[in-house]
């Protein structure tokens, strides 16, 4: 009655049994279905996140309110003010003194001030009339965008004036014509949706698995399992497969929402997306399993999983913040995070297409990490206590 043989096992290493693995997978699936909290993380949270990312988060500044101080409402001044409002990105509240404008700014009713002084008209004719553009700098990113909107509106106004023959123009001017590839309409959803995929995969991959293995240690279920013919590798496969499927379901859900709800294009091929995502998911699972085998405590495992996988996926992956601009030391840390490679992969596959020059190196990095963490987990999960 030796089950450790048979033709099917040819592909499995060292006498692993497909029957046992199938049984462990079934057990894990039943447990997932019966535990409301893991269902919540695996299914409810992604839907939450899709809605938030799709409908609430946006880095695109639209209609930022500006206080326009017209100390003396000359036609020129009024014309400039109108020019600012025409841009479509800014709206104006006209006031007559800087004091009022300051008050609006303090109350955060406006994001900036366009200050045309009393001598604006005079300055125009003598050249060099100062126009102050003040922004509320607390949210620096938003402030900078508003600043560039204002600068754009201002140069447009200047250009129109000169073409009206009002003044100057002896020297040539450089004008920037910019094109943003992959995202011509500059819609921030285009990079938020791929980022969302990373978050969801990290959640199901690392956080959930970190908990499940630790739970078996805590509840003592592993002790009984160990004294059966089961192999450590089989236990790990049994843990991996269900969460892998769950994670892939999350991917499909998000990709579908991105494509059909938020019109984010998928320019690369679907198969490449699946392949790379499967790879990342395996890395995340391996890390989750490693954390829980190393800590054997649900509380500590979840803390570490949050700090080591989830938060970096949000902050250190290049999803929101450009990694080229962080200090050297922090950048070095980011090289050890799989999310970094996955974000790069996803942004390319979604928005640029199958660019192998990006896809291959990133996938290679993920393969290495996966191998390392599975190896470490195997070493940590001996069929031994203590």
């Amino acid at each position, binding site marked *: *009655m030796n*089950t*450790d043989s048979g033709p099917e096992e040819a592909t499995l290493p060292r006498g692993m*049994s497909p*029957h*046992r693995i*199938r*049984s*462990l997978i*079934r*057990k894990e699936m*039943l*447990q997932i279905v*019966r*535990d409301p909290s893991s269902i919540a993380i695996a299914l409810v949270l992604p839907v939450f996140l899709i809605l938030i990312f799709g409908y609430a988060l946006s880095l695109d500044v639209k209609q930022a309110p500006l206080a326009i101080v017209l100390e003396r409402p000359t036609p020129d001044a009024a014309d400039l003010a109108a020019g600012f409002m025409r841009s479509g990105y800014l709206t104006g509240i006209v006031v007559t003194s800087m004091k009022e404008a300051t008050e609006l700014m303090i109350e955060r009713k406006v994001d900036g001030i366009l200050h045309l002084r009393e001598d604006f008209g005079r300055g125009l004719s003598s050249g060099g009339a100062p126009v102050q553009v003040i922004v509320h700098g607390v949210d620096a990113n938003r402030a900078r965008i508003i600043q560039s909107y204002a600068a754009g509106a201002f140069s447009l106004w200047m250009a129109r004036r000169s073409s009206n023959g009002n003044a100057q123009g002896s020297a040539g001017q450089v004008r920037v014509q910019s094109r943003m590839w992959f995202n011509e309409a500059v819609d921030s959803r285009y990079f938020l949706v791929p980022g969302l995929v990373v978050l969801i995969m990290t959640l199901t991959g690392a956080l959930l698995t970190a908990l499940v293995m630790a739970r*078996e240690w805590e*509840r*003592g*279920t*592993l*002790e*009984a*399992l*160990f*004294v*059966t*013919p*089961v*192999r450590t590798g089989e236990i790990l496969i049994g843990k991996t497969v269900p969460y892998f499927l769950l994670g892939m379901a999350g991917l499909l859900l998000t990709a579908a929402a991105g494509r059909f709800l938020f019109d984010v294009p998928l320019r690369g091929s679907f198969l490449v997306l699946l392949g790379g995502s499967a790879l990342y998911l395996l890395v995340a699972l391996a890390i989750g399993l490693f954390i829980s085998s190393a800590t054997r405590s649900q509380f500590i495992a979840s803390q570490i999983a949050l700090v080591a996988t989830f938060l970096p996926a949000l902050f250190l992956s290049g999803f929101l913040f450009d990694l080229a601009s962080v200090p050297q030391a922090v950048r070095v840390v980011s090289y050890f995070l799989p999310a970094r490679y996955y974000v790069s992969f996803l942004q390319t596959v979604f928005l640029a297409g199958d660019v192998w020059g990006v896809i291959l190196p990133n996938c290679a990095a993920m393969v290495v990490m996966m191998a390392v963490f599975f190896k470490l987990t195997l070493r940590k999960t001996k*069929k*031994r*206590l*203590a």
Partner: protein
Amino acid sequence: MTAQPEGPVLSARSLTKRFKSGKGKEITALDAVSIDIPRSAVTGLLGPDGAGKTTLIRIATGLLVPDSGSIRVLGIDLAAHPGEVQSRAGYMPQKFGLYEDLTVQENLDLYADLHGIPKEERSKRYPELMHMTGLGRFTDRLAGRLSGGMKQKLGLACTLVRSPDILFLDEPTVGVDPLSRRELWEIVYRLVKEQGLTVLVSTSYLDEAEKCDTTVVLLQGKVLAQGSPSEISSIAEGRSFRISTPETLKPRQLQARLMEAPGVVDATLEGRLVRFVESDPGELDPALLRGLTVTPVRPRFEDAFMTLVRRTEGKERDPSEARVRLSPDQAAGVSSELVVEVRDLVKRFGAFYAVRDVTFQVRRGEIFGLLGPNGAGKSTTFRMLCGLLQATGGTLSVAGVDLHHARASARQRIGYVAQKFSLYGQLSVLENLDFFSGAYGLRGGNKKERMQWALEQFGLAQYSGSPAGQLPGGFKQRLAMACALMHEPEILFLDEPTSGVDPLARREFWHRIGSLADLGVTVIVTTHFMEEAEYCDRMVIMVDGEILAAGSPAEIRGRARMTEDREPTIEDAFISIVEDYRQERRAA
């Protein structure tokens, strides 16, 4: 399968295992242990908490690696091929790892799959197992919803899905009621008889030792004795006696006196009779027994065990330490005043009646026992008395009020020790005492005095700085008692206080309870250990939420149907009462 070589199935030679216990200290769990386990027999592993029983079993199953020494199981060198042994052994850990969110059937299937049992064999095996364990009706129930006894049986069924060559059971009967215990043992014996199974079982129930073919007594990591139960029992030959209690005393008071007397290693209750064991013949002060008839009796395993342990541990466990002294104003004495009154108490969860029409009274200074199998509604009744649950119907009053509705200050008058250890494990003994005295509003000199009292009375001073969670079992239990007594309550609720506590600690515990009652504290206690029911003044037996019997220990014992020729015990009575009841229900 290859022919089994003759000789012991398991043989260990000078196994030693040490554990680090923080701060660079080391604990020697096993100290040069050598044992042999014979084929097709039940070997019992006995010893108090921390003796090394679990460590030994874990080494034998390859879950732990010994620091030195060698062990062969089924003729295989464990160090070289642990996997081979694990494929052929069955193991039921103390906290059996059932998947509580899987059903009975799913748990069985999982283990059958892991052992690679083919379909045909299952269709033969499952009905057998279901019949054996009586779980047939519950195959679709989640394991987490089973009672303690059924969980243990399911755990055993999972280890038996295929016939193992050797079976390891680590304290399989802890927290299991006497009926289920008896059934578990029957299953094990049938396997030994019918299939020639070899079993190694650890237990702290000394009466179970008598059911083993051979026993190993462990203490502090060393083998104290090895042999058949009768061989071990003979150590106490000529030292075991029985005396009857004079009318002027309660039996437990006589038992307490004997316990404290020098030269006595053990004293237990048997109805109106007290059984005691002398450390050496003639050592006992004859003045103590003046005017009493002393009959020599045949020694039991328990007598020998106590003799062995006391010999090794000596005066360390001086029983007089265990006598609780309270402040004089509390010594109110016994009275006929009713302190607890329960009338037609009902607790319903949905359509299920957990407690149905329960009525009883408890007088001041009484020790009152609530007995019953797992799931009988004892704990539910208890939780209602303490105000943790609201009753669905009926009335109850504790010290004149219903605690669920009364002002919080009414709870000042009760103390409560929960079923499982429920103190703050990471806090030290002193910090726990400090918290609970603060919780009951003690302060200043009074608080200091009470804390000092607790440390002295419960012998906790040596551990005052250690985290409560790391105390040895018996000391945890002492600390739990101390915390519940900080505010000198009139009524003490104890929910299975001795479950999982070794026999030595249990004796100490009852010694304390007795002296508390003598001082006028009312004690209400639930327990699985039927021999402990002897210490109660009165008791009720509950099954399926109803009271089946009530009365003094003597009255209860009178209801036993005896087939053998011996004094009926409370356990015999209990089993008869419950079986009668179940037969009636089946008939109805």
